[in-house]
């Protein structure tokens, strides 16, 4: 490993100390009674358009995204750009469906998607399915944020053998756990503002300075192997890479806002209008993500992979080291400190929101539903605080003792699992037509088929369907959610004939402004 980069390290640590102070101070921001779950876990639903923009942006565009998307471009080329159509199609979905979800949740004090499903369909088992899906999809996602943090700590030259090597990661995580416990969602909301400003500064610098250093975009793309610049044209009797690309984008888009951390971010907004406005404003982040994907190509053109000083980093972190290596090669040390801090803090914001979201789910939809149905407000908030600690500790143990590859595979499965809640949650905000048990059967079928297909495809996102001599490689999540919806539609009349439908706790007016 290279020597410690002291200038960069000092800037990095200084920025970390600043956000640590900010995280604790956030408890007093827009002060509320943190012994109430909606105050601790949703920031009192008080964030306006501006803070919501930072919060959701900081929540969805994570450190792992900033490392992994360019790494995919670096390794696999054009396919990595699916992140752009993906983020183009998520915002109409946000605009149309989620203000409705916000309103019904505000009206009934629902904190989680599972709370909504419980009220809408009156079936605790269906709500439990949504809860468990949310929790298991979130845990590996938190672990992957740590991978982002690990990569930049490694890039600073901080390394060691055995447990001392993991010490910086452990310290960062203890800080994260402490301020999340004490300030709840207010902590990541305030830190997100700092993080996003740093990320924007870094991306502008990267997109302007590096192409100049490398002699312009034409030179950069000339250095990229031609097979990586475009998607491969499909051969005979297949939709090939085109279908793969489009289904990845669409399936990822359908899944994104169903992740518990997305829903927590959305429900913490102060109004449905704030969410609608953000659907038009959040593409600012998508534009940045698109430029960042190009960084993978910058790294190819800069030839960082063949430089001896980065060999150890690539050996340890694989293609994920492409971004840190490029930043180290292109910028003075003090700016590297800022850029790495942006990525590192970019790991803490979503990790905090994810752990809060998982804690809200456990507290509301498992503990309250199945263990202690009548907690006091204080007990409920206290339970959530403890669970957020346990969740983060679990993610830390996972990343320290389990190979990273396993976390990546589980996160991939997480996308396939979370999309199975589309019928109950996303379609549920529009219609109560579906039978609750039909939804549960559809969910189970999607979960089982999705997991089996992913395993058969060796834990890659694409599964190839063959039909009438044609092949259709595509995103497993999208294929299996179609199976899920079809089953739910077919079985709804069957179950309706067999048993009485539970009452809907919501009425049509709850969904409108």
């Amino acid at each position, binding site marked *: 490993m290279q020597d410690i980069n002291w200038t960069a390290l000092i800037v990095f640590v200084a920025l970390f100390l600043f956000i640590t102070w900010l995280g604790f101070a956030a408890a007093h921001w827009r002060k509320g009674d943190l012994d109430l779950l909606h105050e601790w876990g949703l920031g009192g639903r008080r964030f306006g358009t501006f803070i919501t923009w930072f919060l959701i942006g900081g929540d969805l565009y994570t450190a792992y995204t900033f490392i992994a998307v360019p790494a995919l471009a670096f390794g696999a080329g*054009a396919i990595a*750009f699916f992140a*752009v*159509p993906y*983020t*183009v*199609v998520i*915002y*109409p979905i946000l*605009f*149309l469906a989620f*203000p*409705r979800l916000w309103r019904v949740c505000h009206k009934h004090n629902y904190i989680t998607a599972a709370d909504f499903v419980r009220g809408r369909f009156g079936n605790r088992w269906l709500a439990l399915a949504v809860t468990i899906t949310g929790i298991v999809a979130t845990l590996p996602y938190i672990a992957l944020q740590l991978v982002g943090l690990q990569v930049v700590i490694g890039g600073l030259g901080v390394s060691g053998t055995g447990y001392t090597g993991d010490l910086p990661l452990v310290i960062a995580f203890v800080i994260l756990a402490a301020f999340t416990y004490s300030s709840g969602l207010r902590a990541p909301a305030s830190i997100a503002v700092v993080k996003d400003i740093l990320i924007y500064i870094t991306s502008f610098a990267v997109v302007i300075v590096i192409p100049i250093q490398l002699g*312009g*975009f*034409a*030179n*950069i*793309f000339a250095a990229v192997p031609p097979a990586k*610049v*475009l*998607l491969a*044209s499909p051969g005979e009797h297949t939709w090939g*890479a*085109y279908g793969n*690309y*489009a289904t990845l*984008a*669409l399936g990822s888009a359908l899944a994104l806002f169903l992740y518990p951390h997305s829903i927590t971010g959305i429900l913490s907004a102060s109004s*449905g*209008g704030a969410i*609608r*406005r953000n*659907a*038009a*404003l959040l*593409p*600012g982040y*998508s*534009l940045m993500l*698109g*430029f960042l994907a*190009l960084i993978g190509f910058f790294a190819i053109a800069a030839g960082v992979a063949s430089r001896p000083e980065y060999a150890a980093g690539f050996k340890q972190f694989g293609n994920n080291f492409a971004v840190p290596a490029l930043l180290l090669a292109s910028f003075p040390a003090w700016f590297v400190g800022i850029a790495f801090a942006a990525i590192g803090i970019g790991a803490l914001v979503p990790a905090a929101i994810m752990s809060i979201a998982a804690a809200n789910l456990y507290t509301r939809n498992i503990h309250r539903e199945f263990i202690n149905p009548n907690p006091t407000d204080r007990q409920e908030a206290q339970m959530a605080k403890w669970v957020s600690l346990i969740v983060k500790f679990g993610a830390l143990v996972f990343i320290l003792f389990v190979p990273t590859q396993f976390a990546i595979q589980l996160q991939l499965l997480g996308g396939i699992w979370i999309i199975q809640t589309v019928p109950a949650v996303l379609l549920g905000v529009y219609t109560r037509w579906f039978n609750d048990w039909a939804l549960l059967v559809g969910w189970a079928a999607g979960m089982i088929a999705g997991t089996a297909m992913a395993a058969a495809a060796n834990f890659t996102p694409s599964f190839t369907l063959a039909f009438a001599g044609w092949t259709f490689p595509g995103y497993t999540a999208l294929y299996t959610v179609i199976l899920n919806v079809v089953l739910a539609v077919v079985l709804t009349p069957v179950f309706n004939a067999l048993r009485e439908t539970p009452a809907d706790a919501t009425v049509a007016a709850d*969904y*409108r*402004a």
Partner: protein
Amino acid sequence: MDQTGERRSGWSWWYLLFLIQFVAVLWPPFYNSIEPTLGGIPFFYWYQLLWVVIGAILTAIVYFATDD
């Protein structure tokens, strides 16, 4: 009175604008080419980045044209 009727259904024809961006970015044959390049960036890349901007504008139009 008409307006209440429209609100009750929760549907607006303006929402059809969203379809444009779905089709534009989810059909790779439209844009899987190098030429024409823009400032050295292949069409594949700048076309999709451009649609991020157009998508935001379409969403803003729908925002101002429809009631909350």
